């Protein structure tokens, strides 16, 4: 929630501003600052579309194409989700972003004891291919890209997406899925992990290898600094860890003997927007530069388009408050402005009511309209990277670059990202930072409108999205029906083949697709993995 620390004198004059990443901001910037940092246009920025892509990955920015709007949507049964998808598309949304319920995210079927009370609650329940058939009915899968917010069982969901596309007559080569598929960030924040680090990373490698060959328009991994930031990381740490995590997945695929230029171009990033606006804009600009340099210098990537940091920059939920929820609509607008000024390819906002409830259709629509009016009404498409050349912004971008590299170096020094996550080193650090931020808000050192300043006035009533127990029952009924109708023999056979392939260390994807096509359940497929891989042991907090 925090933005920056302001040191003031008794007359409310600002003496110092300290950003979360540790940068001190001066009252005035001039050409002297650029001189001091050795600013060089070609090396530090270059034109948009040119290495190192600080100014953006496309030469014309939003003039050639506005951003993709992708509100996180899905709840209850696949039927309800399908309706909401169509509603958002009819309102001009250009991509889908599927929310799954927790049992699905954790690999449990709706009738599993572990799923009780959670079926369809925070997203759509998915048990078998039948659910995808309903959810994606009448949606042009060759025209619209679909984000799948799934991690531990992303391999299963990607297989199911291929299966549903084929069922509806689309060539897998034409479909574009973006499963989140970033397990290391789940272990740092968000917590939807199942398997231990090593097999979990191997599954991600499988999806990348498989997509390369079968679904080349799919973006198999969306590396999420977003949730790491939500857990308490600074903006510099967010980018540093995201890049190191991406490198861990790259290393897994390289070890299989592929050329990096064959797959890394499909990586994308999901990054967070809340916080001080200048720090975030500089963060995104620096991130593009460091990612490109990382790929070019460390991995020898040759094609410039494979060095693009393509990103969903999303309005972070942590910035929003429970107090005076209507203020969150304004916060969302500013976060979207930051994402646009930073050249996001795709964007989404948390809705103003998310501290209370799953967004209602009305609040989701307000978020979508916020994004649309920036592009179509106030002029964010006019010119690419409009802040370039600002003495302040260029100095800050360079400073952010240094801070991000420092954080990367710290983790590499510790023994690498895999070790830092397995040991809980990063988890403990971000938890401590999160606690420090809360203390800062309580002491009033960090200002938050409606929380520790300007608290007067009534908060508006928030309309709650009510959980529908009937949908859960319906989902379990429909699962039972699928189980009655499917061929048990085919299910057993394909699961057996999946098991042998997993034990043999083969790429599991083709086997998962076979399982999906005969309506094996998510739980059945995940259990094969659970039995072979075991579960991740969460490192202790203290």
């Amino acid at each position, binding site marked *: 929630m925090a933005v920056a620390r302001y040191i003031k004198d008794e007359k409310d004059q600002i003496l110092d501003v300290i950003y979360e990443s540790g940068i001190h901001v001066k009252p005035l910037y001039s050409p002297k600052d650029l001189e001091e940092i050795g600013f060089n246009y070609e090396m530090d920025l270059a034109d948009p579309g040119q290495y190192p892509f600080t100014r953006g990955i496309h030469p014309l920015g939003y003039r050639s194409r506005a951003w993709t709007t992708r509100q996180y949507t899905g709840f209850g049964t696949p039927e309800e989700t399908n309706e909401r998808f169509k509603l958002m598309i009819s309102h001009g949304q250009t991509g889908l972003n599927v929310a799954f319920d*927790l049992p699905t995210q954790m690999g*449990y079927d709706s009738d599993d004891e572990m799923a009780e009370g959670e079926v369809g609650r925070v997203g759509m329940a998915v048990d078998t291919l039948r659910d995808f058939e309903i959810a994606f009915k009448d949606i042009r899968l060759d025209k619209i890209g679909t984000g799948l917010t799934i991690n531990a069982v992303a391999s299963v969901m990607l297989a199911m997406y291929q299966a549903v596309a084929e069922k509806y007559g689309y060539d897998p080569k034409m479909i574009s899925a973006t499963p989140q598929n970033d397990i290391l960030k789940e272990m740092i924040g968000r917590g939807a*992990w199942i398997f231990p680090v090593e097999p979990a990373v191997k599954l991600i490698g499988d999806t990348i290898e498989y997509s390369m060959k079968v679904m080349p328009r799919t973006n198999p991994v969306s590396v999420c600094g977003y949730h790491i930031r939500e857990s308490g990381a600074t903006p510099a740490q967010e980018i540093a860890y995201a890049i190191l995590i991406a490198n861990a997945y790259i290393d897994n695929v390289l070890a299989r003997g592929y050329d990096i230029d064959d797959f890394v171009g499909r990586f994308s990033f999901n990054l967070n927007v809340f916080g001080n606006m200048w720090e975030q804009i500089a963060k995104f600009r620096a991130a593009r530069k460091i990612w490109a340099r990382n790929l070019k210098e460390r991995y020898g990537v040759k094609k410039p388009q494979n060095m693009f940091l393509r990103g969903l920059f999303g309005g972070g939920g942590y910035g929003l408050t429970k107090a005076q929820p209507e203020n969150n609509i304004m916060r969302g607008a500013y976060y979207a402005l930051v994402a646009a000024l930073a050249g996001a390819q795709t964007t989404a906002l948390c809705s103003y009511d998310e*501290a209370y409830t799953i967004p209602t259709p009305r609040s989701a629509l307000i978020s979508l309209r916020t994004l649309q009016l920036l592009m179509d009404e106030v002029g964010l498409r006019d010119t690419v990277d409009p802040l370039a050349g600002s003495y302040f912004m260029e100095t800050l971008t360079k400073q952010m670059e240094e801070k991000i590299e420092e954080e990367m170096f710290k983790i590499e020094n510790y023994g690498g990202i895999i070790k830092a996550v397995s040991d809980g080193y990063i988890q403990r650090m971000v*938890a401590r930072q999160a*606690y420090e931020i*809360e203390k800062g808000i309580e002491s009033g050192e960090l200002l938050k409108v409606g929380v520790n300043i300007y608290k007067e006035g009534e908060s508006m009533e928030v309309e709650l999205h009510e*959980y529908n127990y009937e949908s859960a029952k319906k989902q379990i009924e429909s699962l039972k029906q699928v189980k009655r109708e499917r061929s048990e023999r085919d299910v057993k056979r394909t699961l057996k083949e999946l098991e042998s392939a997993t034990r043999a260390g083969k790429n599991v994807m083709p086997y998962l697709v076979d399982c999906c096509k005969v309506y094996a359940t998510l739980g059945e497929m995940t259990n094969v993995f659970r039995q072979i891989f075991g579960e991740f042991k*969460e490192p202790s907090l203290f």
Partner: protein
Amino acid sequence: MPHNKNKIKILIAKPGLDGHDRGAKVVAQALKDAGMEVIYSGLHKTIDQIINIAIQEDVDFIGLSIMTGAHIPITEKLMKKLKEKGIEDKKVFVGGVIPSKDIPKLKELGVEGVFPGGTPLQETIEFIKNKTKTP
């Protein structure tokens, strides 16, 4: 397990499948800093697992952190099992994404304190201290 009874002992638990633990971890650290002994359950715990930790560690309080909206059924289940095990003396508090209208319902279930997101840490600390004073 015996422990120094002068020190308040608290289990902060994450029941169910949700993995959003920023709030739970912040509260755990704040209570520890306030001089209490804090056990953090870790993620994805079943109610039975939470009860077992509470018994083994002989805690005075159980704090549940729930962000998914399932706070009523989850809490109901915990309270029922506490009774079954004869350890209903352990005081329960709940935090997370909790709409105001659900607070009376949670209290009816026997929950001693409800702290929705945005509650000052000091309020939770004071609550625990007060509840410990009165027998």
